[in-house]
């Protein structure tokens, strides 16, 4: 069963702006699927079509087989959604926000309080649940929003830029909670981001989007192979026997030799953290001495640059966006 199935989706704003220009993608049930691309790539538009907010101008989008325009109310029952902008009433407490949303979502009265308490506890917000959301940090706001999105046990969690504007610690806490919840409940996660490291680390499948079109898609490690993978450069203490060393190193699966010059060898390694120790052990076991090891891991950004000629993350744009999101949070619901 596919959680999301999108075919040739087109969305035009006004007459000119083709925000989505024939997008097709599949999100497998149980996966964590990232939609990665720069600002203006069409990520939010795609999410808004899938969450039944916008009608597409062409193509189809289905969620667990239900068409997002024809069966929109069925789709809304199945999804939990966190928009990019803050979706809480900042002049109510964290608990009150959960209570109101639980009633809007029709959570049965007898299980409501227990559910709210459980989720607040799970997200580490129990102690601050009586405080007004206005006093929350960005990370707390996101965790509360995710808790609200999970209240009705959705089969698909859709997050639009879930960690935008958060500092690294708050970002990883948000992701820890999502991963922990997934382990217990197996919910499918579909998220948009322009942080390539986030897509790489937390998603098991990535769709790269640029100017309303899918650039490519695949598992992060697969995509990184498009840019010749992760490089490891090993320098030996003294001039080494090329052919013998080549044989030793090549015997490790997933490792290929890119070049070998006098005292240093450059390797392409598919999974550096697990393969590098094996490589080094074999080198030491054969009596060679190593003076330096350099690792340069491939990034999805490089994949994106190779395929589109532009970077995913443009710093100026990002800072502007972060500032405006912060302003929005401060201004409140």
């Amino acid at each position, binding site marked *: 069963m596919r959680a999301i199935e999108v075919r040739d989706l087109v969305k035009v704003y006004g007459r000119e702006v083709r925000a989505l220009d024939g997008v097709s993608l599949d999100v497998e049930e149980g996966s964590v699927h990232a939609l990665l691309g720069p600002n203006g790539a069409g990520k939010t538009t795609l999410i*808004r079509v899938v*969450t*039944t*907010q*916008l009608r597409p101008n062409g193509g189809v989008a289905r969620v667990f087989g239900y068409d997002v325009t024809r069966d929109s*109310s069925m789709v*809304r*029952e199945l*999804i939990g*959604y*966190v*928009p*990019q*902008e*803050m*979706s*809480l*009433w900042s*002049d*109510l407490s964290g608990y*009150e926000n959960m209570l*109101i*949303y639980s*009633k*809007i*979502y*029709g959570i*049965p*009265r007898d299980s409501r309080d227990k559910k709210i308490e459980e989720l607040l506890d799970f997200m580490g917000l129990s102690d601050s649940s009586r405080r*007004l959301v206005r006093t929350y940090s960005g990370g707390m706001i996101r965790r509360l929003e995710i808790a609200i999105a999970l209240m*009705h046990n959705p089969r698909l969690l859709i997050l639009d830029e879930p960690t935008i504007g958060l500092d690294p610690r708050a970002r990883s806490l948000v992701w820890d909670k999502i991963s922990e919840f997934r382990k217990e409940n197996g919910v499918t996660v579909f998220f948009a981001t322009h942080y390539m490291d986030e897509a790489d680390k937390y998603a098991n499948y990535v769709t790269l989007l640029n100017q309303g079109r899918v650039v490519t898609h695949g598992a992060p490690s697969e995509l990184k192979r498009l840019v010749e993978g992760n490089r490891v450069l090993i320098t030996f203490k003294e001039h080494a026997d090329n052919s013998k060393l080549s044989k030793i190193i090549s015997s490790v699966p997933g490792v290929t030799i890119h070049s070998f010059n006098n005292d240093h060898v450059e390797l392409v390694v598919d999974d550096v953290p697990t393969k590098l120790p094996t490589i080094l052990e074999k080198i030491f076991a054969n009596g060679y001495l190593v003076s330096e090891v350099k690792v340069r891991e491939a990034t999805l950004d490089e994949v994106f640059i190779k395929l589109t000629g532009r970077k995913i993350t443009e710093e100026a744009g990002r800072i502007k966006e972060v500032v405006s999101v912060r302003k*929005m949070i401060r*201004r*409140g*619901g």
Partner: protein
Amino acid sequence: MHFMKLESLASMAEMELRRLRHDPFEILTRAVQPILWIFVFGSVMARIRAFPSVGDYVTFITPGVILQSSTFISLAYGIALIFERESGILKKLLTSPIPRSYIVVGRALAGSIRASTQYVIVLASAAIIGARISSNPLNLITGYLVLILACMGFTGLSILIASSLKTRERFMGIIGAITMPLFFASNALYPIEVMPDVIKYFSLANPLTYTVSAMRKLLVSNSYDILQETLILSCFTVLALGVAIKSLKRIIE
């Protein structure tokens, strides 16, 4: 399931009451103007006896001042939706399983509850300076329900304007332009008979006139002859909410 959806409608009103409890500031500042209308305008006009046909003037304008204050709050309520459009709340509500009509009706109820706080404040102020208002609880409760009905219509109108204009500046401009004419071209401060013909016709198309009229019958003349007013107000409210429901989708596009 449908029973639970009714609860989701009521939860919007609950949300509004909880917000009011955390921050009653708007209600208090909004009460300044009607109190001045009663204490200053009402007592000065009463002394010059400008409209002898209406009896005690402060008593006469009390229902009008209640409506002035609460329609202003209702008509301004749409600004909340514009803020919620800029934040993610509306997106969240529109992707939740409840029908979109419930969002509009629920918010209209919420807005009218916020507005109806003026009922108590104005009635109390009027009583202090000796206005002769009915003390029959049934009349007072019926008056309150008429007010809620009318304010739901005005809030619906406000949601409709918010969905169409989408920005705070344009919304505030329009609301500023329609509230005062709505108030003056009604029977809130003077009887319809004294108006020039053009304004008379306008006031007969003004839902505020029928609300004030029903309220005056209930609270001043102790009469339950309000069927006509209630029917007209119901049509206004249903129409305003109906069009607001149709327009809601536009607000997030």
